[in-house]
């Protein structure tokens, strides 16, 4: 196994092929670690920007009445918050993690298509520059919600909608290229002997996510192109007056949109499936069923889209089909949760920051899953639909789901990235503040939703006032806490206790076999994985330095 660490004796060689100096290093880099870091920084900037828009929303909703912004701008904030968080924060963060970790996890020297990798990253600043710029245009930015239903987003949209469409196209191209890269890397560059069923679950979930992306991002491109045609070229895809149908928009959008929500959660499932075993000091329970469950979730995600549309007037048989199919998702998701709990059971548990975030992930994501199951029940959905209950639901799966998954991953791999241990005390503070703030912000939304408060309104009746104030306080707390995360990361980059190659005694996987910080080039000679037993199930087995 000593063949694995090949870089130590080649200092001179390393020096030769080290990073370029100055700005060109970042502009021209084809190195998966550089690109991964850029993706992560980009997503954190987007997270702060989208988060500050959420602060505007919560400040306006702090009390009944219009105080801070007018409805027109409020709608732009809800729209941009959604778009930036989905396409700018969560998705690029997972692409960043994939870039950094997939080659390290499968023993590959880099991503399979490094130049395309550079291009798919650099499309993002262009796309988001364009999108954010619309806020300063005459008539304002997109104000039709992140789901941009026609005809509000076509005939009735502000003129900047064309820029929005172009921005979505760029993001889509970037995502598709990123996904192709992941598929090509995972299928072609695995170390000898690393069979598919030896891959860490993060690689598995990303492989499946990549296929989802390749399948649905073109659908999104299609729907925005249809909008563009309706707006500028006189077609009537979404206008009944010309023989089209506004509901067609929703079918096409949600055929993209539902798999999209799994795109935002599956990689987090994978990361948590590495972190929980590491801090339980016990192998992952049910590796095989985890893989199959991920596949099942991905398949089901294609046949449930109309559960977002129970109130548009679909026929009874349609309602029944989409209700049953949606309920079925609970089965593979349940399997995953049971597997994580069984992994912890009779382990030897410690609760460093990655584990705290991972455990909170399992509990709070499950709460989001429960409300998801409630929303699947079509007759009950008639009451929940488009109320704050839905807002509570998807924030429970996205904030402690996707975002806690990202935080867990960041703390877990920060020592590998920076070569230093992060400040554990501050990280725990970050966790508890985020945990309390997030629950304060989103749990009361269930209540106001059930009591009858519609989503996307800038003002409300006094009967919703109490819980809205609680929500706002929680949101401010959660938002402010994220600056602490920035501080922790910068502190960790600048110094701290040097991290050993494997800082977590229970961790397994090839990424821990290279030094910390990971050298600029790793696995130029692939490690041999043929001796590793498959029954250690993808954790990299006993392969540790």
């Amino acid at each position, binding site marked *: 196994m000593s063949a694995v660490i090949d870089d130590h004796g080649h200092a001179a060689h390393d020096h030769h092929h080290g990073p370029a100096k100055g700005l060109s290093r970042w502009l021209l880099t084809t190195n998966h670690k550089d690109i991964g870091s850029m993706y992560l920084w980009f997503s954190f900037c987007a997270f702060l920007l989208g988060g500050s828009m959420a602060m505007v929303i919560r400040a306006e909703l702090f009390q*009944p*009445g*219009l105080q801070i912004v007018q*409805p*027109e701008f409020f*709608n732009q904030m809800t729209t941009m918050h959604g778009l930036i968080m989905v396409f700018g924060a969560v998705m690029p963060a997972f692409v960043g993690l994939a870039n950094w970790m997939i080659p390290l996890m499968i023993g590959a020297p880099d991503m399979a298509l490094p130049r395309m990798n550079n291009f798919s990253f650099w499309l993002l600043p262009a796309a988001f520059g364009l999108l954010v710029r619309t806020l300063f245009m005459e*008539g304002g930015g997109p104000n039709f919600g992140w789901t941009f*239903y026609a005809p*509000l987003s076509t005939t*009735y949209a502000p003129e900047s909608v064309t820029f929005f469409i172009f921005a979505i196209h760029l993001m889509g191209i970037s995502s598709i290229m990123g996904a192709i890269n992941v598929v090509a890397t995972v299928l072609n560059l695995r170390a000898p002997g690393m069979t598919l069923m030896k891959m860490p679950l993060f690689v598995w979930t990303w492989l499946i996510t990549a296929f989802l992306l390749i399948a649905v991002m073109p659908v999104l491109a299609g729907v925005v192109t249809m909008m563009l045609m309706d707006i500028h070229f006189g077609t009537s895809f979404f*206008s*009944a007056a010309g023989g089209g149908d*506004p*509901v067609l928009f929703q079918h096409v959008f949600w055929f993209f949109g539902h798999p999209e929500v799994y795109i935002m959660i599956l990689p987090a499932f994978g990361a948590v499936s590495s972190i929980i075993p590491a801090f339980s000091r*016990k*192998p992952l329970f*049910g590796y095989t069923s985890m893989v199959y469950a991920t596949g099942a979730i991905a398949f089901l995600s294609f046949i449930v889209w109309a559960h977002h549309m129970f*109130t*548009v*007037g679909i026929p*009874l048989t349609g309602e*029944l089909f989409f*209700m*049953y199919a949606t*309920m079925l998702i609970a*089965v593979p998701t349940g*399997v995953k*949760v049971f597997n994580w*709990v069984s*992994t*912890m059971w*009779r*382990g030897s*548990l410690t*609760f460093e920051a990655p584990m705290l975030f991972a*455990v909170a992930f399992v509990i709070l994501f*499950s709460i989001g899953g*429960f409300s998801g*199951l*409630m929303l699947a*029940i*079509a*007759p*009950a959905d*008639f*009451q929940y*639909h*488009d*109320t704050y209950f839905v807002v509570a639901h998807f924030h429970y799966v996205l904030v402690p789901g996707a975002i806690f998954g990202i935080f867990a991953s960041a703390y877990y791999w920060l020592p590998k990235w920076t070569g230093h241990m992060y400040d554990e005390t501050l990280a725990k503070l970050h966790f508890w503040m985020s945990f309390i703030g997030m629950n304060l912000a989103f749990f009361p939304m*269930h*209540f106001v939703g059930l*009591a*009858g408060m519609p989503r996307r*309104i800038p*003002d*409300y*009746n*006094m*009967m919703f*006032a109490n819980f809205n104030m609680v929500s706002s306080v929680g949101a401010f707390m959660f938002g402010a806490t994220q600056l602490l995360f920035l501080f922790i990361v910068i502190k960790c980059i600048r110094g701290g206790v040097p991290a050993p190659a494997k800082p977590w005694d229970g961790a397994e996987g090839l990424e821990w076999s290279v030094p910390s910080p990971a050298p600029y080039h790793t696995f130029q000679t692939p490690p041999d994985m043929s001796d590793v037993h498959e029954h250690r199930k993808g954790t990299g087995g006993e392969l540790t330095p």
Partner: protein
Amino acid sequence: MGLGLLATVAQARAAWDVNMRSGATDVSRSVFDLHMTIFWICVVIGVLVFGVMIWSMIAHRRSRRQQAANFHENTRVEVLWTVIPLLILIGMAVPATRTLLHIYDASESDVDIQITGYQWKWHYKYLGEDVEFFSNLTTPREQINNQAPKGEHYLLEVDQPLVIPAGAKVRFLITAADVIHSWWVPELAVKKDAIPGFVNESWTRVEQPGLFRGQCTELCGKDHGFMPVVVEVKSQEDYAAWLGEKKAEAAKLAELTSKEWTLEELVARGEKVYQANCASCHQPTGEGLPPMFPALKGSAIATGEPEGHLNIVFNGKPGTAMAAFGKQLSEVDIAAVVTYERNSWGNDKGDMVTPKDVLDFKQAEEATQ
């Protein structure tokens, strides 16, 4: 009075409301029961799963057990926790399907009402009864802008509620004139999207008279939060009397068209029409919110030829948010609002457009089509 008192009590309770109301109809009660059933099933599963997890977090810490177990699969357990959730789901699907079948029962109705969503108000038309009207938010701007204390039904009050008879099956035919809206009254458990160019169907049967409030639930632009739904359920007799009154009103309105109006009368009526229909975009000051909603104060149209002004109010401006009010407002109201706009905020044309002019315009329009 009694109703008002009851509502106050309900208001106080509502401030910390954490759950759905069971509502006022068979359907709403069965939806509520379904909601509670699924909720409790989730609670039980949650307690079990999180219980095991928390137990493990306490009992299986490294400080208590140095050596972790090493098991990592068990086919029997894995099959069990796949099959048992599946059975629970089937148990949930049965009552859900039953309720859904009930909601989709499209048998004959006693009253048919066409509901049309507009930016940002609702239009109700009693099919076969020659009664139709708009329902606008009545909460004053001062309350919204925090210059006056907020009333009890802040943002949930309208000038004319939808009136339906108790005990009767009322069918709603729901559509929209511009963008997608959604008509929702929580206590009736009716929520249906209003889609331009298509008609959706829904129904209710409320046993007891009462007043029920809801809101638009599909983002429909700037004033999405300001287009409430209010439904007043009257006893059969009261409903019949109300319908009679409404018909008489309609007849009276027709008479008004032929009446001789003075400029002052038209401006006075026009101001009310303007506040209800135009002010949310063009603003009470007539200054608009450019560039989306242009100013009327000093605008070329409002100070130009009356025909051009009448035309844009009547037909709207395609491709913009300016709606066609020709079919929304009566001849009198269109005449009044146009006259008002030509003689307010410093616009001093001094001319007027009479209901008779509007009628002529309307007939000319119809003739050309």
